[in-house]
């Protein structure tokens, strides 16, 4: 099985598509927020790979072509942003306040939990950029002397948490405005959250795309200021 995967240009790709398809199907059938297509796909693939003893590298030799499109897809987020540009200008104050409180609360809460669990400086700066998009977070973690691979892990987990639990949180805390939902998803859980925001609607998607950019850039500036607190 390892050999088939290693020599194939399609197996990992197709496995990912099928796993995602299963995710979409289960979500439609079961209507629970927790049955999120991305989450189900990940579980299905991990289960499949460990059952057939396939190494990650062999799976990724073809699955990597999916991830290749992440950069042009992120560039394309400018399109919904452009379509909603007048909305953006009209609500500039709410956008700035929302994203800034998100970025600051991210820094402060990571600091608080690091204190609580007695994390070392290295562990603390590893977690500090966890809410921003992967490539920015990797850069910040590296610059502050964090463990980059664990930063990437927490960024992905953060994204999935935001994607899966956003609707429950919005309901519990009575967040109803599409603009606020979009800002919240993008600031807390970057591009993975944004793919959820796109499902909710065009306004949510545009605001979430904007938040990836603004919160990412703000974190580049603010994270170094917080890095020496532990």
């Amino acid at each position, binding site marked *: 099985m390892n050999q088939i995967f290693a020599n194939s240009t399609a197996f990992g790709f197709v496995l990912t598509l099928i796993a995602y398809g299963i995710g979409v199907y289960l979500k439609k059938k079961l209507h629970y927020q927790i049955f999120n297509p*991305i989450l189900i796909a990940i579980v299905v693939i991990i289960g499949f790979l460990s059952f057939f003893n396939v190494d990650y590298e062999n799976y990724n030799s073809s699955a990597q072509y999916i991830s290749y499109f992440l950069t042009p897809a992120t560039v394309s987020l400018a399109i919904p942003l452009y379509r909603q540009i007048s909305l953006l200008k009209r609500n500039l104050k709410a956008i700035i306040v929302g994203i800034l409180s998100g970025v600051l609360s*991210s820094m402060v809460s990571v600091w608080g939990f690091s204190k609580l669990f007695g994390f070392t400086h290295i562990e603390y700066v590893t977690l500090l950029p966890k809410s921003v998009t992967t490539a920015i977070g990797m850069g910040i973690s590296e610059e502050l002397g964090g463990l980059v691979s664990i930063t990437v892990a927490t960024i992905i*987990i953060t994204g999935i948490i935001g994607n899966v639990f956003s609707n429950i949180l919005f309901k519990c805390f009575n967040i109803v405005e599409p603009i606020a939902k979009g800002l919240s998803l993008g*600031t*807390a859980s970057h591009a993975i959250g944004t793919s959820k925001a796109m499902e909710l609607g065009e306004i949510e998607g545009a605001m979430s795309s904007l938040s990836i950019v603004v919160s990412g850039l703000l974190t580049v500036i603010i994270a170094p200021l917080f890095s020496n607190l532990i």
Partner: protein
Amino acid sequence: MKYIKQFGIILSITCIGEILKYFIHLPIPASIYGLIILLLLLMTNIVKIDDVQDTGNFLINIMPLMFIPGAVKLTTLWDQLKSIWLPIIITTFATTFIVMIATGKSAELILKWERKSNEPNIR
């Protein structure tokens, strides 16, 4: 032809983003430069929305798929994570919830406040 042109524009902008990343030594990825460049090109009408829209929407539509291989990779990091996974998971959950609520609530507060202060003018 339509899709070739659109894909060409998006990938060219991605390339410009990569060039910028090469010369500017900041932890900012090529995709963010590209996003800003495409937005500026659209706003200045140099690129028309119809020149990128179909391919761009397709890419955004399949975006959730693109995170899956990276997430599956987490299984290979288990050796590094196993000593501290529980505090890290708790921190990750809690801080993500805190950021979502802080962002959403503060934005909504401003939106409601602005609406209220605008109301007398409407009536």
